[in-house]
């Protein structure tokens, strides 16, 4: 016998967790952009740094905050943690990267 309401998720908890993840990713990727600008990285080196820091931050988040069980805290964790905020963070990173690059040059 199957129940219709066995797989219900709390939207309140979901938005709380998403906001926390977003705040961490925003602040760290903006600072990573500053560092990339100070280091005068160009082209693929800068984007490589973006992906390295993005992966590092997400792995720390999964290990520390989710205790290696992101499915307990996120619906579709691969999408929510890795994909959903990727271009938002990339835009922020490029913004501070170019700002620091031109200020330092």
């Amino acid at each position, binding site marked *: 016998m199957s129940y219709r309401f066995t797989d*219900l*998720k*709390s939207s*309140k*908890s*979901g938005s*709380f*967790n998403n906001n*926390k993840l977003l705040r*961490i990713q925003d*602040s*760290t990727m903006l*600072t*990573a952009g*500053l*560092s990339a600008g*100070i*280091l*005068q990285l160009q082209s693929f080196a800068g984007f490589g740094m973006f992906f390295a*820091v993005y992966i*590092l*931050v997400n792995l*720390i*988040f999964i290990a*520390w*905050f*989710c205790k290696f069980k992101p499915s*307990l*805290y*996120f*619906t579709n964790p691969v999408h929510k943690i890795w994909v959903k905020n990727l271009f938002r963070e990339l835009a922020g990173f490029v913004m501070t990267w170019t700002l*620091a690059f031109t*200020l*330092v*040059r």
Partner: protein
Amino acid sequence: MSILSKSFYFIAWIQIIHSGVSSYEFHQIVKHIILENPDAKTPGLPDDVKLEALCGLLFFILGTFISQSKLKYLSIRGEERIIETDEYLKPIELNKASSTDVVINNDPYGEINYLPSFVDIHAKRKLFKEYLHRSL
């Protein structure tokens, strides 16, 4: 935010600003060298400046994670107490998420249950009269 995370942020910003200023000064010197001798081979950014910028970033990332506090709840009705948990995030499963509401005596459907149409106004008036009677 704990003193530890504040100190991490402080060290991070000092390192990032200092490496930025150092990088700026280095590039000013390089510009002068090129102006004096256009054929001169320009050196790369010194390793200590690179290391300082990366260390600043690492300290900032650590500070960001440390500054996040574990979840705490204050019970709303009944005995007032702070309930500390070992979690940074809220569980997504509805049965677990609602169990927190049970622990803190929160009514997640209070927006509906406390609408005037749903409130037993006679019981409330009786309670209020009793309260007035006691306080007078």
